[in-house]
């Protein structure tokens, strides 16, 4: 630690006598407070703490100033005494003693400053160490955070996977049943059009009017008209082709298969609002009908019926 240079001589100095008076005053004050000199020494030579707000640097500077002043005074006194007779014999000694004293203080302050410098250096080293550890801790924290995130993602995905496994297990159906069902619905051309189908063929992917009337439901309302189908409605009229079996039992009524099957119990009064949400929300309608046509947009299959590519029934 380098000490600041002493006050340069370029600064304007008041007249020496005033200075000497000032220095003398200070010296006198110091001498007067010699009883508290020890305290002063403690204060000066004490620890790092700056109790009264005087830093070591300031103290050093003031000591330097005092030294300078005192030495000047001494030199002037000596110079004067060369010309004049020794009038103030004692004062020389006083100033000299003050000078020596001040010098001693200065030396002590220097030692103190040196110690402080060493300690400051140590402090810096320690601070660097602390910084390094701090950055280590921060990096560790970052890594922990990353690890936590990754683990959380992994756990979440694993949970999702488990959920989907559970869902799949719940809806598990034997493959045989599925194949049987596939045979049933395909053989009767219910989901796939017959290869010889042409427009005009009365067969449809849904039960036609004729079939509906011939079924159990139809028979219930018309017990008298048994098997007599008067006029065939439009969709079964063309081409004059009637369904192969005009029996009252159609395969889609599944009489024999479903002997042991029962519908879920219900109260016969459907006027009671069942618990559950009402699908009145129109937004859902737009989202729901993505593959099938929604009521306001048109999505046709690849082979559109000619001439009807943009039917829009909101006239």
């Amino acid at each position, binding site marked *: 630690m380098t000490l600041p240079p002493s006050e340069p001589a370029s600064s304007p100095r008041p007249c020496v006598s005033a200075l000497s008076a000032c220095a003398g005053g200070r010296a006198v004050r110091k001498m007067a407070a010699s009883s508290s000199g020890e305290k002063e020494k403690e204060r000066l030579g004490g620890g790092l703490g700056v109790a009264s707000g005087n830093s070591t640097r300031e103290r050093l500077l003031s000591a330097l100033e005092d030294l300078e002043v005192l030495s000047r005074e001494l030199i002037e006194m000596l110079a004067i005494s060369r010309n004049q007779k020794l009038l103030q014999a004692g004062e020389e000694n006083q100033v000299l003693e003050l000078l020596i004293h001040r010098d001693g203080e200065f030396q002590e302050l220097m030692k103190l400053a040196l110690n402080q410098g060493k300690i400051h250096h140590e402090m810096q080293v320690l601070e660097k160490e602390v910084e390094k550890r701090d950055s280590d801790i921060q990096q560790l924290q970052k890594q922990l955070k990353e690890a936590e995130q990754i683990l959380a993602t992994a756990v979440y995905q694993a949970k999702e996977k488990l959920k989907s496994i559970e869902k799949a297990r719940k809806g598990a159906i034997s493959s045989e049943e599925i194949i049987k069902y596939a045979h049933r619905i395909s053989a009767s051309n*219910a989901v796939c059009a017959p290869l010889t189908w042409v427009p005009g063929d009365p067969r449809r992917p849904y039960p036609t009017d004729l079939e509906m009337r011939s079924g159990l439901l139809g028979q219930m309302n018309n017990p008298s008209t048994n098997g007599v189908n008067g006029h065939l409605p439009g969709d079964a009229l063309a081409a004059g082709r009637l369904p192969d079996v005009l029996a009252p039992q159609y395969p889609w009524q599944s009489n024999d298969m479903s002997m042991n099957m029962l*519908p879920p119990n219900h109260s016969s009064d459907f006027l009671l609002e069942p618990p559950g949400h009402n699908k009145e929300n129109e937004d859902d309608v737009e989202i729901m009908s993505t593959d099938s046509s929604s009521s306001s947009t048109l999505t046709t299959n690849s082979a559109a019926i000619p001439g009807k590519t943009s039917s829009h*029934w909101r006239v």
Partner: protein
Amino acid sequence: MAAAVAMETDDAGNRLRFQLELEFVQCLANPNYLNFLAQRGYFKDKAFVNYLKYLLYWKDPEYAKYLKYPQCLHMLELLQYEHFRKELVNAQCAKFIDEQQILHWQHYSRKRMRLQQALAEQPQQNNTSGK
């Protein structure tokens, strides 16, 4: 004894109800029938709407395996929405659905025909490339 008899009649009643509901739910696959129902105002009846909601049990696999026309389930789902029910009053709507259904119905047979055509073209290509 009376209880057993009662249960039997109950059972028979339930079986009949099962058949009727099976038929009815499959009738819903017919858009013309839906149009018919809409025009007669059945869809405005609260009890009917609740009945449609009750019919959703046909979606369970143990019931669905009895359906010959599985498209009815999709129609049933759509019928849960009031918007759809309102739209069905228009004959044009029903006609459109009908057309789309038939087109979709023909999807697989068309696909098969295309595959056959592609297969038929392949040996021809091989012959031409060989030469």
